[in-house]
């Protein structure tokens, strides 16, 4: 199969399989993610979508922004749905009714992945379906009006954990879904960011060549929920990487590898400051929150570096 080199000049000659005219908000971080994932595939793709912004806005009655076979059934079962399609494909292949090489991708938001779709995702990973699950992580239920999810970072102000004088936003840490997925013993789990488009597409390409269940968590800033400017989705995803809030790494057959190491690790406040959802953390009485958030990031980053080092040795 001819592969398109990962240069924007060559990629732009390919057809983008998510069209204009979708109803995602101005400046949303999710469409660039989907665009990059679909551009990276050299194979025909069948996708399933969990309920969420992406599903709602790309398939509003009578209109679809997808130029690939695309299925939505419910919030909790994107992984189960695509697992079923993949099973049917395998059966048809065995019967000699189909010979095309097709790839299966599920898209889910963090709500449909970390929380509601978690059991069906875990099940599909355990059963070993040949599929790639992509979570576009914007850190809350943005579609229904910014309710907290288990991907919401510590300290964030959402409508169900509002920052007030008694409780200053979300007090729990976010779940580390990529590590949880890697712990399923799947052949490939990774984190990516649209700001590092080449790294993201490389990972998708790699994942699609691996047989078995794959998982990718991709940060997708939401200016409505993050209370930031409409033009900073890519800037914020870059800051998330440079502050090590969202490190870019992959776990391939149990071996951890950090794919992008920031030249200079920026302080977490660089990432928090432009976002209104963290505004209260900069109040003098909440100084401890900034400190704790930074400590958590440092701890996770050190742990990740240790794991990467251990994988190098073995």
């Amino acid at each position: 199969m001819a592969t398109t080199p990962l240069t924007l000049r060559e990629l732009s000659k390919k057809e983008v399989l998510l069209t204009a005219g979708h109803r995602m908000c101005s400046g949303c971080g999710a469409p660039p993610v989907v665009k990059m994932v679909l551009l990276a595939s050299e194979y025909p793709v069948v996708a399933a979508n969990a309920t969420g912004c992406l599903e709602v806005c790309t398939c509003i009655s009578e209109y679809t922004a997808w130029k690939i076979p695309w299925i939505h059934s419910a919030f909790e079962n994107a992984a189960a749905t695509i697992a079923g399609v993949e099973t049917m494909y395998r059966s048809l292949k065995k019967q000699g009714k189909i010979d095309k090489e097709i790839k299966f991708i599920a898209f889910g938001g963090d709500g449909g992945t970390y929380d509601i779709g978690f059991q069906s995702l875990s099940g599909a990973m355990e059963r070993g379906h040949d599929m790639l699950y992509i979570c576009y992580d914007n850190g809350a239920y943005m579609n229904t009006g910014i309710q907290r999810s288990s991907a919401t970072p510590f300290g964030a102000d959402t409508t169900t954990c509002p920052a007030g004088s008694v409780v200053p936003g979300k007090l729990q840490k976010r779940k580390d879904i990529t590590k949880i997925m890697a712990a399923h013993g799947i052949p490939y789990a990774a984190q990516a960011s649209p700001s590092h488009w080449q790294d993201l597409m490389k990972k998708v390409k790699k994942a699609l060549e691996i047989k078995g269940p794959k998982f990718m968590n991709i940060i997708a800033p939401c200016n409505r929920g993050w209370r930031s400017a409409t033009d900073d989705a890519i800037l914020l995803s870059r800051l998330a990487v440079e502050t090590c809030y969202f490190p870019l790494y992959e776990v391939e057959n149990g071996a951890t590898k950090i794919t992008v190491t920031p030249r200079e690790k920026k302080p977490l406040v660089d990432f928090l400051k432009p976002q209104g959802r963290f505004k209260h953390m900069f109040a003098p009485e909440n100084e401890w929150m900034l400190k704790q958030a930074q400590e958590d990031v440092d701890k996770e980053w050190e742990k990740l570096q240790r794991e990467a080092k251990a994988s190098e040795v073995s």
Partner: protein
Amino acid sequence: MKLKGWKEVTPGAVVTKAGSAEEFKTGSWRSFRPVWLEENCIQCMFCWIFCPDMAIEAKNGKRGVFKYDYCKGCGICALECPGKKGKKAIVMEEEGK
């Protein structure tokens, strides 16, 4: 744009055309308009890959014009544009001015 009545809609509102969202113009959402200054453009294509609305044309690997029918005016392209010698190739202008 006129919306279809119930008599014109397919049974079950089934979508029969892939990518039919292109018939829906989202350009009216925009309050700021990106303007491309070709003389400052280095053809890095960052605007093309980062545009959430697929509102930048690409032809033969080169950047084309803005598709104002779809551009929602978020300004990501202007912010990410590296420009030439410190001069941006995309600037945002307020609509109606």
